[in-house]
């Protein structure tokens, strides 16, 4: 009796979030699952087309280009973000004067809306009157400025902006991990004559393993799915140079430029299929990472 009562009590807690998950999570996924086998433009009747959408994906060079761009973008973002976040966390974990303020400053980009952030960065990076170019020209480092959002540098620019937005968040997670490492382990290693660098390598990193595994996992998934700042900065351009998987997908559902362009046609059916394949790609990468990083999680 008591057991049943307990179970009921537990279920009553689970129920609200389970309901929300079903309505907001499972239902849209089921919706997308259905339409990936259909040709559906958002009006009229959806037409069953079997696996046509998937054979179209195989031939869709724009999609595969966007997959490559996603890897470049995510890879670049992670390579900058993770070491930098770890370094900042390690520095701010020490008894540094003003560290609370610095933590706040580094974390700030996380709470600023991505769209607002990207608009601000646009005024910095745009090539005709951007602040950065004016600065470079004043210093005599460039004659006519650099086309930061042009074909050559656009990807680098969007990676830098993304890294700026993400580093504070991961720094905070690392910081939480660092603070869980007991001080006596450091004391013991110091008695054994370990230097600060050796302590970092042989104490901090291994003990941070489980946290780091989780943080990198989150970072990978977030980076692979990121598209908001790119949409504001370049809309995936110039000519697809910064078009990442989820931006390509977004445009299939909601074509950009609709307000002032010709009549736009939405592709819900094909978009759903692309969404599924994109999710599988993200899933596979996560699995590979999880398998490759299993040594980091020694507490199992």
């Amino acid at each position, binding site marked *: 009796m008591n057991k049943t009562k307990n179970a009921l009590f537990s279920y009553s807690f689970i129920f609200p979030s389970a309901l929300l998950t079903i309505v907001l999570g499972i239902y849209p996924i089921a919706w997308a699952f259905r339409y990936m086998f259909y040709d559906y433009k958002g009006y009229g009747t959806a037409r069953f087309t079997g696996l046509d959408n998937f054979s179209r994906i195989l031939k869709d060079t724009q999609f595969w280009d966007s997959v490559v761009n996603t890897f470049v973008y995510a890879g670049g973002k992670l390579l900058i973000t993770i070491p930098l976040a770890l370094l900042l966390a390690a520095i701010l974990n020490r008894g540094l004067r003003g560290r609370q303020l610095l933590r706040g400053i580094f974390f700030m980009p996380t709470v600023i809306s991505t*769209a607002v952030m990207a608009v601000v960065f646009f005024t910095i990076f745009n090539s005709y009157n951007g602040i950065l170019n004016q600065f470079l020209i004043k210093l005599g480092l460039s004659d006519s400025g650099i086309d930061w959002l042009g074909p050559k540098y656009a990807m680098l620019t969007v990676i830098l902006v993304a890294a700026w937005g993400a580093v504070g968040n991961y720094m905070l997670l690392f910081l939480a991990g660092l603070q869980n490492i007991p001080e006596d382990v450091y004391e013991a290693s110091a008695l054994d004559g370990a230097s600060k660098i050796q302590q970092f390598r042989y104490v901090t990193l291994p003990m941070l393993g489980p946290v780091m595994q989780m943080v990198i996992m989150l970072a990978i998934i977030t980076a692979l799915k990121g598209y*908001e700042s790119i949409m504001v900065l370049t809309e995936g351009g110039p000519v697809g140079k910064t078009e990442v998987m*989820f931006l390509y997908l977004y445009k299939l559902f909601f074509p950009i430029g*609709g307000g002032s362009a010709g009549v*736009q*046609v939405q592709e819900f059916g094909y978009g759903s299929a692309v969404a599924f394949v994109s999710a599988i790609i*993200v*899933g596979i990468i996560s699995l590979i990472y999880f398998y490759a990083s299993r040594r980091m*999680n020694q507490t199992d």
Partner: protein
Amino acid sequence: MMKRTLMTSMSLVLALGLAACGNGNSGGGNAAEGSGDAATGGSGEKTKISYWTGDRHDADFVKEKVAEFNRANTDGIEVELVVKGDDFDTALDLSFQTSDAPDVIRVKENTIQTFYKKGFLAPIDEFLTDELKAKFPAMPDLNEFDGKRYSLPNYGTTMRLVYNKDLFAKAGVENPPTTLQELVDTAKKLTEAGKADGAYGFALNFKSPSSAFARSARVIAEMSGYGGFGYDFKTARYDFSGLEPIINAFKQIKDDGSMLPGVESLDIDPLRAQFAEGKIGMYISYSSEPGVYKNQFPAKIDWAAAPAPTIDGMVKGASGFLGGQWLSLSSKSENKEAAWKFMQFMYGDQVLTDYQEKGFGISMVPSISAVAATPDVNGIEGFLPNKNDGVWPIYPAVAPEGMKSDDAFFKYMLNGGDLKAVIADLNKRYNAALDSAIANDGIKAEPDAGFDPAGLGGKFAK
């Protein structure tokens, strides 16, 4: 093991969740702004209705009119005005999915067909008196579908070449270009004269190639007798070859170094800001520009608008006069009567006359055009309809597999290649998509051998 399975499934669900919704946080310039103009005082229950628009150029004017309606109407109707940003279409889609749809919807010539097909709009015939039917012209595919009316015209949009008169004078160029070759040459001369001050001959908002070409290459093609979006109304097939010389001219301007650096990431508003500062010699755009330079970005230069150039100087078609619709009634509205009362107010002579006279748009309603004064806005003269402005029929929009025409053209402009091959590929893919749309989506595309693009003009001005 349990943990691993849990994490993997969590990542999959996270990824799929975003994929399925796809729209979680749209990010892009969402300047949605709710501005409920609550009527003060009054007793009893108010009938609340909402009006959604994506227009920003007339936002203050419309806000004022909504407030006026809320104050003056005696039926206890309160209109909430919602001005959306670039995400207007997306937000509307979602509002219909979530039963949170507005009562009155702003429709445009490039959205009304889609909204109609999606079932967002309710016919307004039951409300139309004979007087109203006579006053507002019915335009098939633009405000009338299957014999039923879904909107009424207010203003139309013309497209023109906008040019910096100061820079023209400085470069010693007297007249705006009338051919593509002159466009290329003028851009070069303007750049030579202005480059030292950071001014360039030509620019377009290529951050969104579809938006850039739809206001530029489109009107040049239309004036030259070709469908502006590559659709040939005579044969009812897609044929982009009419755009070839236009794209080549744009590429030439870019290769000459006469185009503003950074156009790849230039949006229309930053472009306007640069033009207002005198950094751009010419661009091609809609008749909303004069209002922009009056209110949004006060121009520091002397500027004017002229007809867009044609391919070879000969006008063989008509410059698109876009419009034929303004407000529509939502099919989901529970207060259609009240919503119609608001629409009736907005379509009243006073509002429509003010709309033109204040320079927000050029009236397409004959009885208003006849009495309303020329808009009191600098630069509007060049945008007023002339004998070469006309309403083009609606083309059957399709979703081709692979790259869209605008992206393919812009790619060619940046990277070069074989434009003829690009066009042949576009024709093939667009026609395949057209065939599929005809067979499966009920899209109609019938050849009209007698279609005469030159005959489209002359209906709004002689």
